[in-house]
């Protein structure tokens, strides 16, 4: 099986790679979102603590 044949997926390339491509995209977006949430939450906690220390 050649590389071209492999990516052609017997004529179903759009459907097969469309499935796996969007799945990968969804995973990447979710990973970025949970990391962003962690960053934002830590920032908020730090701000709260600093505000508490000043008061």
């Amino acid at each position: 099986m050649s590389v071209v044949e492999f990516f052609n997926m017997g004529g179903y390339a759009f459907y097969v790679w469309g499935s796996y491509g969007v799945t990968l995209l969804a995973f990447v977006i979710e990973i970025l979102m949970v990391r962003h949430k962690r960053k934002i939450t830590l920032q908020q906690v730090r701000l709260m603590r600093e505000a508490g220390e000043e008061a």
Partner: protein
Amino acid sequence: MAINWFKYSAPSTFYGLAGKMIPWFAIPSVVLFAVGLYIGFFVAPVDAVQGEAYRIIFIHVPASILSMFLYLVMAGYAALGLIFNTRLSSMMATALAPTGAMFAFISLWTGALWGKPMWGAWWVWDARLTSELILLFLYFGFIALHASIDDPRRADRAAALLAIVGSVNVPIIYFSVKWWNTLHQGSTIKFTGTSMHVAMQEAMFITLLACWFYAVAMALIRVRSIILERERNNLWVSELKEVNS
């Protein structure tokens, strides 16, 4: 050996434990995806009827199973939180919802891309597809309802009720291919064994495991942020080294 199970039901102790557990789920997930997709694309033979298009199964079936399984786990945690008033259970339910919704979306998306070449339609309003779409909306409803109520404990209770009532939809999805005459094919994995080629089965079970590990890792990362958010007025949070750095 006496294990104090309740020790880790406190958000403060679970926060640290969850942090240690994340790599034990994230790394196996990557490895299992690599192995499962290698078998799925290079070892498993071409399907006699569907040609290469059937290879969508290695993500479609695991995503569909996970979307249903995660819903039941989420509803279970939500119910525990409602009955025993345990904060951490409710936090776990909230942490699982977005990942469950994502798997429901992947299930529908890959299903559409599989349906088009095999049935000639991206979408049909049959029982299997419609009940899976309802599952996605139940996840959205849970997330939106929880986000719309300011008091977190009240939000937990309201969202828990929605999750519990909505869980009747899961057996409907599962049995829909038996109860109604649908376009969707019957279950690939049956309790009496399967009709699949061994390499196809292996690839599917391995990617299913990979998805499960992935979901646990995501929920653990998310629940840590939720714990910090909701416990931020407590002393232990202000003493964390990641807060002080």
